[in-house]
């Protein structure tokens, strides 16, 4: 029951009724943003949200997304550094 898709808000249809349009790779659907309107900054066009059964559940934090990816990419370089250091030290 966990299918959540990232989508971008492209239009606010009716702020009072919490209706907005989200875009997922060119496909558009009306979503209810009532659960995320209270977030800092509210909801505006351009925000990315996680969509589940027609509702925006949370705003996707682009900074956190970037830092998650950075961490993952770092792992590669850390490992390479270790290999380099190890080979430098190891007596042959």
């Amino acid at each position, binding site marked *: 029951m966990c299918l959540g898709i990232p989508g971008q808000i492209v239009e606010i249809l009716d702020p009072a009724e919490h209706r907005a349009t989200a875009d997922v790779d060119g496909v558009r*659907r009306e979503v209810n943003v009532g659960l995320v309107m209270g977030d800092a900054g509210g909801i505006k066009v351009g925000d990315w949200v996680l969509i589940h059964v027609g509702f925006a559940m949370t705003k996707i934090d682009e900074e956190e997304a970037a830092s998650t990816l950075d961490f993952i990419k770092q792992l590669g370089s850390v490992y390479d550094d270790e290999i380099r250091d190890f080979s430098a030290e190891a007596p042959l």
Partner: protein
Amino acid sequence: MSEGPGDEGSRRDYSHEDEVLERIEAWRRRRPKLKDEFINSAHGAGGKASAALIDAVFLEAFRNKSLETMADGAVLELPSGERVAFSTDGYVVKPRRFPGGSVGDLAVNGTVNDLAMMGAVPQWISAGFIIEDGFSITELRDLVADMAAAALKAGVQIVTGDTKVVNKGACDGVYITTAGVGVIPPHIHLDAKAVRPGDKVIVSGKIGDHGVAVLIARGDLALEADIPTDSAPLGELVEHLLAAAPNTRFLRDPTRGGVATVLNELAREAEVAVVMEESALPIRNIVNGACEILGIDPLYVANEGKLVAVVPGEEVEAALAALKAHPFGVDAAVIGEIRDDPPGIVLLNTVFGGNRIVDMLVGDPLPRIC
């Protein structure tokens, strides 16, 4: 390796698991049993339930050699020695009109394509109409105009037909059944059983367009997207393909049930394994997006203007070139290959580096909501 924290004993013991898997494969090879007493939507979806119905009800009663081959149509031999391909299909799509086309286009192109997949040159089509009392003649004219245009484009003639009117409520608007006949050139022999390990699997273009277009056009899911159907007549495309790659083993159009269903049918009929590369599957971003939202797998979604071809390795370059040179094949791509093991199974190497099975469809591809 020392025993560490966690359960001792149940490492991945493949031997026991293998036994279970073998038992399952033996079970799956049995003739599909039909246990249902009433028809349900799964029986029309093109997957396991459809196969069970056809086997238990129709094949059982009509049993003959031509029918048993269970291809898209029948290959009949005339006294002169010429071979003729004969196919039929019913068209009940709802809504009747969708972005890029209508049931009229499908009714002609669908049967044309079935004939083309047998290597025949589609020539003559029959069209039967079952029409609900009160149906708009204007709409009927529009659908028939679409059929005429499609026939012209496909180079076929609608030479005979029938019309029946049923009471209001006895059918949903109009149902169209078309049948088609075409001659198979003498040197063409397409057969699933000709497929060999090492052969490559080609798809003629981007997948998933038609099924998604119709699902969206239905309106229940409240999606908006610019996705037209890909309905197209493939007779000429096939001619060009077979001219460039005369040893093409097998052709089928991935309609109901999608590419996955065609490949599963092939794997079974030829007793080979089909292995696909997920990264090679051609699909439009927007179609992929729609499938992600709906939770459906594009491999199971219907296409109405595409073909799947199995071609020996040495002819692949020529085959691709011929397809790409034709307007209906510009996005053709090699998506996989035939192997001998595990037989009867379709595997997908995931983008991520793992693999999974792509099994025969069960039931209707209900969008996975959760």
